[in-house]
C-alpha cells in the first residue's frame, strides 16, 4: 500500500511533523469555533494535511502560494507563524492580517503565502500572474495554487490552463479532489471524474496521485516543480483526498456516509505515514511529533488571546 520508501526518511519525518502541526492547529480551531472564540465560516482541511505538507515543504519563501477557502494547512505548511495565524482567526490585532481577513483570507507575504480567497477558484489566474512576474524577474521561482475539485468547473479554470500552457508559465496547479463541492458529489457536477482528465486537451503534464500517501505527493510534485523551475512550463497535480470533517465547522454532514474506523486508517494521511514509518523502522514510538505540535498550538492560542483586538483601522490603511 505504501511507496514511502523512495523518499528520504528525514523528509518523511519533517512531513509528519508538519502534518501534525496542521492537524493540531485545525483541531484547536474547531474547538475554538465551538467556543465562539474563532468567528465566521471555518473550513478545516483535516484529512488533507498530506498535500499541504508535501507541496509546501518543497517550496521557498520566494515561491508564491495561493489557496482557497480551505487554506489553514497551506498557510501553516508554507511557514506562517502559528500564533499570528491563530490570532487572525480570532480577529486579533496581532493576526497575520491584523484581524482584517480571517479564515478565508489569510496572507503571509514574508513566507510567500500570497493569499487565500473565499471565491471558489477566484485566484487561479492570480497565480499565473505571480508566475509571469517571477519569470520576468529572471528568477526560477514558481507559483502554486491550491483549489478544490469544485473550482474546476468554473470558466476561469480553463481560461487559466490555456494561458499558462500557451505562455509556459512556471505555475503548478494543485487540485485537492475530495469528491465533493460543499454537499454535492462530483458526479452531479461533471461527467469527468478525474480533474487531470479535464486538462487532457491541453499540452501540459498532468498527474493524479493518492493525496493521503504523502510520499507519493512529494515525489510527483518534486518532478513537476523541477520542470517548472527549469522553465519548462506549468503542470497539474491532482491529489485525491478525503475531507474527514464536514464542509464547514458545524456541517451536520448527512449527505454522505460516515468514515468507518477501518476506512480512516486508509484515508488519514497521518495515520498512514505513521504506520509506514513503524513498518519501515524510521519511527520507533518514542517520537513526540503530536505532543510537540499540540504544545506549540497551545502556545499559539495563549499568544493570540493576549493580542488585543484592533481598536481601529491599522496604520497602513489610514
Amino acid at each position, binding site marked *: 500500500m505504501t511507496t514511502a520508501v523512495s523518499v528520504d526518511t528525514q523528509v518523511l519525518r519533517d512531513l509528519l511533523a508538519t502534518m501534525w502541526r496542521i492537524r493540531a492547529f485545525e483541531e484547536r480551531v474547531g474547538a475554538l469555533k465551538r467556543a465562539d472564540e474563532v468567528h465566521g465560516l471555518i473550513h478545516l482541511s483535516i484529512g488533507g494535511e498530506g498535500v499541504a505538507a508535501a507541496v509546501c515543504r518543497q517550496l521557498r519563501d520566494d515561491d508564491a502560494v495561493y489557496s482557497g477557502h480551505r487554506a489553514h494547512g497551506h498557510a501553516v505548511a508554507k511557514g506562517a507563524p502559528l500564533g499570528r495565524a491563530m490570532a487572525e482567526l480570532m480577529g486579533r490585532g496581532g493576526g497575520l492580517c491584523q484581524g482584517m481577513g480571517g479564515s478565508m483570507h489569510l496572507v503571509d507575504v514574508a513566507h510567500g503565502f500570497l493569499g487565500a480567497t473565499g471565491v471558489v477558484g477566484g485566484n487561479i489566474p492570480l497565480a499565473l500572474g505571480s508566475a509571469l512576474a517571477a519569470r520576468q524577474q529572471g528568477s526560477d521561482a514558481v507559483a502554486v495554487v491550491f483549489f478544490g475539485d469544485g473550482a474546476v*468547473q*468554473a*470558466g*476561469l*479554470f*480553463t*481560461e487559466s*490552463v*490555456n*494561458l499558462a*500552457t*500557451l505562455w509556459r508559465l512556471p505555475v503548478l496547479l494543485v487540485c485537492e479532489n475530495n469528491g465533493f463541492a460543499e454537499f454535492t458529489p462530483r458526479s*452531479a*457536477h*461533471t*461527467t*469527468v471524474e478525474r480533474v487531470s*482528465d*479535464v*486538462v*487532457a*486537451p*491541453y*499540452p*501540459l503534464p498532468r498527474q493524479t496521485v493518492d493525496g493521503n500517501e504523502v510520499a507519493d505527493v512529494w515525489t510527483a510534485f518534486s518532478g513537476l516543480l523541477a520542470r517548472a523551475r527549469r522553465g519548462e512550463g506549468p503542470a497539474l497535480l491532482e491529489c485525491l483526498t478525503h475531507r474527514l470533517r464536514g464542509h464547514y465547522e458545524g456541517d451536520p454532514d448527512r449527505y454522505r456516509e460516515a468514515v468507518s474506523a477501518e476506512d480512516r486508517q486508509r484515508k488519514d494521511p497521518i495515520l498512514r505515514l505513521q504506520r509506514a514509518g513503524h513498518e519501515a523502522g524510521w519511527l520507533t514510538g518514542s517520537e513526540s511529533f503530536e505532543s510537540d505540535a499540540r504544545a506549540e498550538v497551545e502556545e499559539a492560542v495563549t499568544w493570540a488571546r493576549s493580542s488585543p483586538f484592533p481598536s481601529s483601522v491599522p496604520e497602513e490603511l489610514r
Partner: protein
Amino acid sequence: MDRTAMYRAMVRIREFEERVKRTFAEHPGVIRGHTHLADGAEASIVGSIAAIRPGDHVMATYRCHGYPIALGSDTTAMMAEIYGRANGLCGGYGGSMHLADPERGFLGTSGIVGQSIPQATGAAYAAQVRGAGDVVLCFFGDGASKQGAFHESLNIASLWKLPIVFVMENNSYSVSVRVEQEDANAAAGEPLATKAVAYSMPGVTIDGGDPDLVHTTVAEAVARARAGEGPTLVESLVYRLSAHGNSIAPPGVPLHYPEHEAVTVFGDVAEYEAALRGDPVPRFRGALVTSGALDAATADAIAAEAADEMQRAVDGALAGPDPDPADALRFVVA
C-alpha cells in the same frame, strides 16, 4: 433543404453580405456602429441549418447575418435593421450585431464574445424539459472557446445530456489575433475540437467550406442530440473573406471595410489569396454543375434572383422610415 436549396441559401447570404459591404461606399452614414460579415462561412452556416427542423433553435454571435437568411427571415427586414429603420427586423433597436427572429427559431445573439454559449445551453435545457425532441444549434467563433463561459457550458451540456450541437466556426482569427497566438491547442498544432475531450463529448474537425460534409456531420450530431445522447462539438474550419468588421471610428469619420487582417496585420497576401481560391460558394457551384446536379443556367438564375432580392432589400431598407425617437423608451421592460 436539398442541395440546390443549400446552394441558393449560400448565394443569398453572399449577396446580402456584399450589399452590406457596398452600403458603406454607396450610402455613407447609413450603417452605423459595427457590422461583421459571414462571407466565407456560407457553406458552414447553410450545411448546419439544413440539418435542423422547425421547432429547433439557433443562437449565434454578432456575426449573425447568415443564420436568419438560411432560416427564412425576410432579407428586406434584415437590411432595414442594419440600416436602423423602423421596418427593421427588430425595429432598429438592435442593428447588425443583434438580429433576432424567434418565429423562425433564431433566438438571438450576444455582442459579447462567448456569452451566447450558456444562453444556447439554456435553450437546450428548455428543449429537454419540453420533451418534443427539439435541438439547439449554438454557433460561435474560435476565439470564444477561450472564454470561461465555453468551458462551463460544455461541462453542463455534457453532464445533463442536453440536446445541443456546438458549432465552432474556426476562421483562425479573433479580430487581428491569430488562433495560435491565443490558443494552447492551436499553438501545439492540434485542432480545437480536442477540447471536447475535457467534457467527455465527441469533438470533430471538418472542412467548413464543404456544405455536404457540414450537413452530414451536423445532421449526425443533431440525431444524437434528439435521441437524448447529448451534445457534440463540431469545429468547422472556415475562412472569413472580409476583415473582422468595418472600421471603428467616432461619429463623423466615414466607415469602410478594410482589407483582411492576413494582409493588413500579417502581410500574408498568399494566405488570403489561397482563401479566395477556396471560396466555398463557387466551389459548391462547381461541384453541383460538374456532377450534373445543377445546370449552369439554373445556377446563373439563382445568382440573378439573389441579386434582385438583395437589391429589393436595399431599396426597401433605404425607403424605410426612421423610428420615432420617443420609441427609445419602449421595450425597456416587458
